[in-house]
């Protein structure tokens, strides 16, 4: 059985409105983040993966299953939507338990799984309170619990970290990592780019219904040739190093750092630049560190889609 989620030339139109267009993806296990501004197609992609909507064109295969096999597919997929969606009047426990019965588990097993999920998100004490009385963070946690209660292999989470306090946020991220470590897929969308950077094994950048970039973020960054890579060099003699670098054709810009203990360099060919730095280090300039400063999700997002403010 294939271990990937495959989108094969998938398009989704809502009448004349474009949802996503010509999406080709092969998503391996691990934590994958969907990043893009509002209306970029993140939720559409998630709904397509969960079989809630059908593609207008193309095919989707979730670990070799199609959305036409709901009985198998929904056992494999757990979905946490970004909206408050609770059937009226249910307590947190009833919410998890009743939905587990829909999977066909018998009542004792559903009860056991419900409590396991509630414990995983730390809501045991509030489990018998009505969902309507929960705080925003608690609602987010109980939604998360319902998505993972049946122990899915593919966890699809629409903005799962919204409304969580820092401690719960850290615990939730650890939970995602534990899922990924088992070889499961965790697909999440988030607007908090620095968090995406920390959590994700790979990112999918979306804009206007198109996939703009996908893969490991450093790999994506290295392919953006319009924007020279920015590198911060910490050294003992920045002005000497700067004069040396000016002569190199792959160096686009050199600027002495504000604290005068390093240089900010823009290079059009990072690989050649790193080889050059090896030679310079041998020439006697003491170099403490060389680190790229724009190979994170935030920078890549800014280069490909716009500023971080545009995300909101």
């Amino acid at each position, binding site marked *: 059985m294939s271990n990937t989620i495959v989108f094969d030339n998938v398009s989704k139109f809502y009448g004349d409105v474009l949802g996503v267009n010509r999406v080709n993806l092969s998503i391996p296990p691990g934590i994958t983040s969907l990043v893009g501004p509002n209306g970029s197609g993140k939720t559409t992609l998630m*709904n397509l993966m969960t079989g809630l909507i059908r593609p207008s064109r193309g095919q989707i295969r979730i670990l070799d299953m199609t959305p036409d096999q709901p009985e198998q597919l929904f056992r494999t997929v757990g979905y946490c939507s970004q909206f408050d*969606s609770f059937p009226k009047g249910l307590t947190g426990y009833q919410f998890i338990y009743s939905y587990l*019965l829909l999977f066909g588990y018998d009542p004792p097993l559903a009860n056991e799984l419900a409590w396991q999920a509630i414990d995983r998100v730390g809501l045991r004490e509030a489990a018998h309170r009505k969902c309507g009385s929960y705080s925003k963070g608690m609602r987010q946690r109980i939604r998360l619990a319902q998505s993972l209660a049946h122990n899915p292999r593919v966890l699809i989470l629409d903005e799962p970290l919204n409304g969580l306090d820092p401690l719960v946020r850290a615990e939730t991220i650890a939970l995602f990592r534990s899922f990924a470590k088992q070889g499961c897929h965790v697909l999440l969308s988030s607007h908090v780019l620095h968090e995406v950077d920390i959590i994700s094994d790979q990112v999918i950048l979306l804009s206007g219904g198109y996939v703009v970039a996908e893969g490991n973020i450093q790999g994506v960054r290295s392919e953006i040739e319009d924007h020279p890579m920015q590198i911060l060099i910490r050294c003992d003699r920045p002005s000497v190093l700067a004069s040396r670098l000016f002569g190199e054709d792959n160096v686009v810009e050199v600027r002495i750092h504000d604290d005068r203990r390093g240089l900010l360099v823009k290079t059009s060919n990072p690989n050649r630049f790193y080889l050059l730095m090896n030679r310079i280090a041998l020439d006697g300039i003491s170099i403490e560190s060389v680190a790229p400063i724009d190979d994170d999700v935030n920078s890549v997002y800014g280069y490909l889609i716009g500023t971080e403010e545009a995300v909101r």
Partner: protein
Amino acid sequence: MAVYKRTYRGYSGAITPSWSRFLVLFRFSRETLFRSKVQTAFFVLCFFFPLLCLLGIYANAHLSVFSFLGRRSEPLLNINGQFFFTYLTVQSTLSFILAAFIGPGLVSPDLANGALTLYLCRPLSRTEYVLGKMSVLVIVLSWITWVPGLLLFAVQASLSGWQWLADNLWIATGIVWGSFIWILILSLLSLALSAWVKWRIAAGGLLLATFWVGAGFAQAINAVLRTKQGYLLDVGNLVAAIWHGLFRDGVNMGFSVTEAWIALLAFCGFCLLLLMRKVKANEVIR
């Protein structure tokens, strides 16, 4: 890309049959059903008339009880198709009011709370969702229509003997089919209105209006066009026409039973169309 060990093991034990999943929805709707005291009181009230009928049937079979009143041993009631037709008419009116209480609260809260997505990203189809919600009305309305009706029939049969049972078995068929038709129409209409009108009271009012306004409209058409075909727009009359056929009382409603069936099927199809247009898992925010 991190390297992960594949230690995941999914559940591989026994599961309940997929056809029975819709009953989970009934199970949880049932709990909220009788939270309203008015609703519960009305449900209890719905058993008053069947009880009265039961007493009537019993008294009819034990006329000697009334000998001290100087009555001759003539039957008090004629227990026949007409008796059960009257029973069904009364109970269906009560079930109509009960459906107006219960029906509007079945789908609209799920739509208002965006809970449909959660139902439908599980092994539950839209049809099963509708079936699950419908089962609430079907089961509750059955308790006050054909279930006590069949009990009354059974009591009468036990008191009158096998011959009466053999001669009047069509009455039992009439009770069951007549009730089912009525329940199906009420359920579909209630759910369709519940899906389109989110305000519960308005949906309940609209259910009542559908019947009364339909009846008024039918009368108007009949008066203007000097015909009786206008009754085809009156759902109550359509059901009555089928019941008259089932209870063999020879009443002519101005149109044939076949026409009534066709009109009712069209009405049910329209309700289903309304329902399925709303029961969707789309969750696209722009």
